[in-house]
């Protein structure tokens, strides 16, 4: 347990591959409590996370971004789909177990207080997982104190405190230290800085960059804040109602967004220039309910360019420009009048 997990497949092999992940949540309410409807949180989604990159995930509430995070860590069991961690299939014969996956993939949540045990001191919290995985207690405590120093908290004054004695920013540093306690290779940050004040958020973002370089980490960074995602990510994945609508390098997504939803998301950002205020909202309405998503393209009910074909056929991800886009306007011969 004590050794850092070795890179096995070389730098070109993706660290994590997920194929056709699906998660539907049944809603009880029918006769005898039987489920009549389902929330289609994540629908047949495939992605890869390259070694050493930061993959940003953006989207509005109900788009399934947190469900994706929980599936990647197997906090939720997918209804279908496969995952491969650096060449090893997860939870399959000849592959690795879910426990082994979780040693290499760790997660930080938004609510820094709810994710810490209020009855454990900070050092006990940090030493918990290493001890559970077989590290002697004294060693686990020593490592915990090292980690505290790494996240900018003086071990002498913080090690024996309880979570309620810390500020939100300090607690989130503890959560990040805990995620690193098992020396993972991939850290999933699910809205990890969203609850922090701006001045504290900047401190934590700087720290995340430092830790990534020092430990050679790979991040999946989930956030609703497009500016923070742009700052931190190498590649960006845009989700809408359980589907990827666009994925590509950060420069491609922010510099040349191709999907109408990505374009709307980016121009919905408040302007920082009082002379260039937003005059018109890019799209109207709220994201629809993921219980009964629209047929065909799920964005079509809010899309200014929607045509008949958008209701009939689901657009698949297709290379367009430097990125991949799921839009009939970008698919040759799709039947959309704006298609190439």
């Amino acid at each position: 347990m004590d050794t850092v997990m070795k890179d096995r497949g070389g730098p070109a092999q993706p660290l994590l591959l997920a194929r056709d992940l699906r998660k539907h949540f049944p809603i009880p309410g029918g006769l005898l409590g039987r489920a009549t409807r389902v929330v289609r949180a994540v629908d047949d989604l495939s992605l890869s996370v390259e070694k050493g990159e930061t993959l940003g995930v953006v989207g509005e509430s109900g788009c399934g971004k947190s469900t994706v995070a929980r599936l990647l860590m197997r906090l939720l069991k997918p209804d279908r789909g496969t995952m491969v961690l650096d060449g090893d299939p997860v939870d399959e014969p000849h592959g690795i177990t879910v426990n082994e996956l979780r040693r290499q993939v760790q997660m930080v949540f938004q609510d820094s207080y709810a994710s810490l045990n209020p009855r454990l001191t900070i050092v006990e919290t940090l030493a918990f997982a290493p001890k559970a995985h077989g590290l002697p207690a004294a060693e686990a405590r020593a490592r915990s104190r090292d980690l505290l120093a790494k996240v900018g908290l003086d071990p002498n004054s913080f090690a024996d405190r309880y979570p309620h004695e810390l500020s939100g920013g300090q607690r989130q540093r503890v959560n990040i230290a805990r995620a690193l306690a098992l020396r993972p290779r991939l850290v999933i940050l699910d809205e990890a800085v969203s609850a922090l004040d701006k001045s504290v958020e900047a401190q934590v973002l700087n720290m995340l960059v430092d830790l990534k370089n020092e430990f050679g980490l790979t991040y999946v960074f989930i956030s609703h804040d497009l500016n923070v995602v742009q700052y931190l990510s190498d590649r960006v994945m845009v989700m809408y109602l359980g589907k990827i609508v666009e994925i590509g390098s950060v420069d491609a997504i922010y510099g040349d967004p191709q999907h109408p939803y990505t374009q709307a998301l980016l121009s919905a950002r408040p302007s920082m220039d009082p002379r260039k205020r937003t005059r018109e909202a890019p799209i109207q309405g709220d994201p629809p309910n993921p219980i009964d998503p629209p047929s065909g393209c799920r964005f079509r009910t809010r899309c200014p360019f929607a045509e008949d074909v958008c209701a009939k056929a689901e657009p698949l991800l297709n290379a367009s420009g430097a990125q991949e886009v799921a839009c009939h306007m970008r698919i040759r011969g799709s039947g959309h009048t704006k298609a190439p």
Partner: protein
Amino acid sequence: MSDLLSVQDLHVTFVTPDRTVHAVNGVSFSVKRGETLGILGESGSGKSVTLRSILKLHPEHRTRWSGSIKLEGDEVLSMTGGALADLRGNRVSMIFQEPATAFDPVFTIGHQIAETIKRHTGKSESDAWKRAKELLELARIPSPAQRLKAYPHEMSGGMRQRAMIALALSCNPSLLLADEPTTALDATVQIQVLLLIRELQRELDLGVIFVTHDIGVAVEVSDRIGVMYAGKLVELGGVEQMVDAPRHPYTRGLLASTVHGGMRGQRLEAIPGAPPDLAEVPAACSFAPRCKYAEAQCLAAPPPLTAATEGHLVRCVGRIDRAISGHLAGNARTHIVDRTGHIPPG
């Protein structure tokens, strides 16, 4: 034009048997009709406490107010009973961050709006419902007649916030208080609600005080922006002055630590440390312990709020000596370039 609202040297202290919190420590500002004042601050800065004091919403027995809040010449802090009830809703109304909890879940939207109208204006049942429908139209809610019959849980977050705005405007207030009304909304919905507030403010010639922690949101809606720190306004000025030439080190720090386009790969200029505990009345500049320009005189006494230029007030003793730092102006410029690079919608 005379001021709609004038707040002078407001202090708010919360007293409980265990502890005392000096939440607001001498805040003065004014708002005119047809003007939006944005109040920007981080958690614990006293921005919401200041806003709620205008309606005297804090529990009477645990709150000590001093100073003056005058609405069209009437002192709010001395109001009780009927005058206070008349103030709330009829003259000043408020919208909150969580429209889901601001509505009663067991009554329809129409019922709640009509009830408010009847209570404050004495209109008949049918007139009140007619007015409720007009208000939903005013808030740009599609098919308003059906929406009147909807329960709060049947509406999406953005629609509920629109209904909340309709409710707030039901008795023609002259001042609208907005406490982070778009923070819980999705990005594409937030901008719709911001634009709605801006349009209604113009149409109805409202005074608006808009409290937020998000600089971008404050810039979108405000004519003037005040920045609060540790219960005081540290800077107050026109929106362009505040964005182009922020004077207070805290305002500059906030702008520099706010991530925006064009900052990739750069190290963020985080403000070190954390805001002070407000158990004591600050005896010096509250920001001095985190300020890289702090000098001996910053720790000697609280700095006064003085005019840096016309209409631009700053609470900092070092402000005149320091030229506006180049990196900040530089950042603001990169962002403008980034914004114009957007693909226009539609």
